[in-house]
């Protein structure tokens, strides 16, 4: 925790305010072979997501006769981090793949496609803290780009703590000396929390502040997601998606 990470003006090492996001750029439909895809540049993070499906579920014994499976694989490529990462899943990426799959499953109308699999691949091309949130943000845009029926899009962001202050969206330098990290994913329309992890040290007050920052940021990211899809498709399609979703959601829970 050497030196101060927030200066006397309340600005961070990259000039951001405590509740300010890094610059985020989202682009839908960036790959040719995938059924749907998205690219997210988030500060120095570069993330690619692709969706295939609904398609036959492999291995077969995982098939669910009542619904589709959402199977996400999160992966950091070998040269996305300072020390070369050996290819293949490590324990961290297995855990992240699991919680992202669970979050995505909530918004996909899986009961429309029994016995199938919706496969989501997230590749971190360049990593700079917050990759699981950038990955989940990209993945839900890729799902929409693939035309998969969804209740809603999922924005995600991490809130952290440095210099005893709650701050939004840590970059790598901040993360290295951070006191806490709290990634969340929240559907703005409903306030549904779909992903939440935390490690470090936070009081309940700090948690509340973190939620304030995080919920606010998710609204902004949500808008960027929708804009990306609008740029890709005619406006009415996206609106249609929004109109339809709540009704279906009620059906599901009824």
């Amino acid at each position: 925790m050497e030196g101060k990470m927030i200066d006397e003006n309340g600005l961070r090492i990259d000039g951001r305010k405590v509740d300010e996001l890094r610059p985020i750029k989202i682009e839908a439909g960036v790959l040719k072979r995938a059924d749907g895809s998205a690219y997210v540049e988030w500060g120095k993070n570069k993330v690619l997501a692709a969706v295939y499906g609904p398609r036959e579920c492999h291995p077969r014994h995982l098939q669910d006769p009542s619904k589709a499976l959402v199977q996400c694989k999160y992966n950091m490529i070998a040269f996305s981090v300072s020390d070369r990462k050996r290819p293949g899943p490590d324990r961290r990426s297995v855990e992240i793949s699991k919680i992202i799959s669970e979050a995505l499953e909530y918004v996909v109308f899986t009961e429309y496609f029994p016995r199938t699999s919706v496969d989501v691949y997230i590749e971190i091309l360049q990593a700079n803290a917050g990759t699981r949130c950038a990955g989940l943000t990209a993945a839900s845009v890729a799902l929409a780009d693939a035309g998969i029926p969804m209740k809603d899009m999922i924005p995600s962001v991490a809130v952290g703590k440095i210099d005893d202050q709650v701050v939004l969206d840590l970059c790598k330098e901040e993360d290295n000396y951070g006191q806490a990290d709290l990634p969340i994913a929240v559907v703005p329309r409903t306030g549904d929390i779909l992903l939440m992890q935390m490690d470090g040290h936070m009081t309940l007050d700090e948690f509340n502040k973190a939620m304030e920052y995080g919920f606010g940021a998710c609204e902004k990211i949500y808008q960027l997601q929708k804009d990306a899809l609008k740029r890709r498709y005619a406006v009415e399609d996206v609106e249609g998606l929004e109109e339809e979703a709540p009704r279906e959601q009620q059906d599901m829970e009824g």
Partner: protein
Amino acid sequence: MARAIMSDIKRDHIHKLLSKGKRVDGRNWDEFRQITVETKYVESAEGSARVRLGNTDVLVGVKMQTGTPFEDTPDRGVLATNAELIPLASPTFEAGPPDEDSIELARVVDRGIRESEMIDLSALCITPKEEVWMCFVDVYVLDYDGNLFDASFLGAVAALKSAIVPAATFGKGENFPLPTKSTPISCTAVQIENSILLDPTLDEEKVADARLTVTTDENGDLRAMQKGLEGSLKLEQVRKIIETSQRLGKELRKLVG
């Protein structure tokens, strides 16, 4: 997402009771099952604890040996946590390398210990950059009836608190108790049709929409959290679980003295 299939009858029964504010085994929503903690269960381990949480049965052991520190923490010991969902414990557990469920379990237990700074890792340095103590925490599930997170975490904390660093065996002076600085406690709740239930049984886990594990320290401060399952939580539900965890943590902490 190896969520086992459950009969509709059982599911309806749980839902019906819940709608009247009741649980199948008669517990209150914020009540844990009976817990027993037996430390020093395995002599060959430096520390160990067998935890029974209702019908869930978990054995945790701590082994220590000397090794090289990580480059970025040259003066600190090494903690490694592993969890094994062995097929002895459940018809749904399969032999083989850790799957996503056991990896998540191990990592959540590990974060709770690491982030609460329970172990004084700097006291486990023998020679900076060269030699430190490595502390392996291995969780074995022996009987599976839900809430592995809390049973395993309680076992890990109890095993660590009872552990003796085997310095004599390694020619590093006299044995000494593993230096610990705090006693973190995790509490896990599930949300089922908007009801919050602490310490879910396996049947309750099977019908649950979402799960949240909250690890707190002696001050009630948050040290780790993990949300799971395909459902959602509202912010007020998260707050309710956090506050309940802070309250119950005080009681559970007494079990591991």
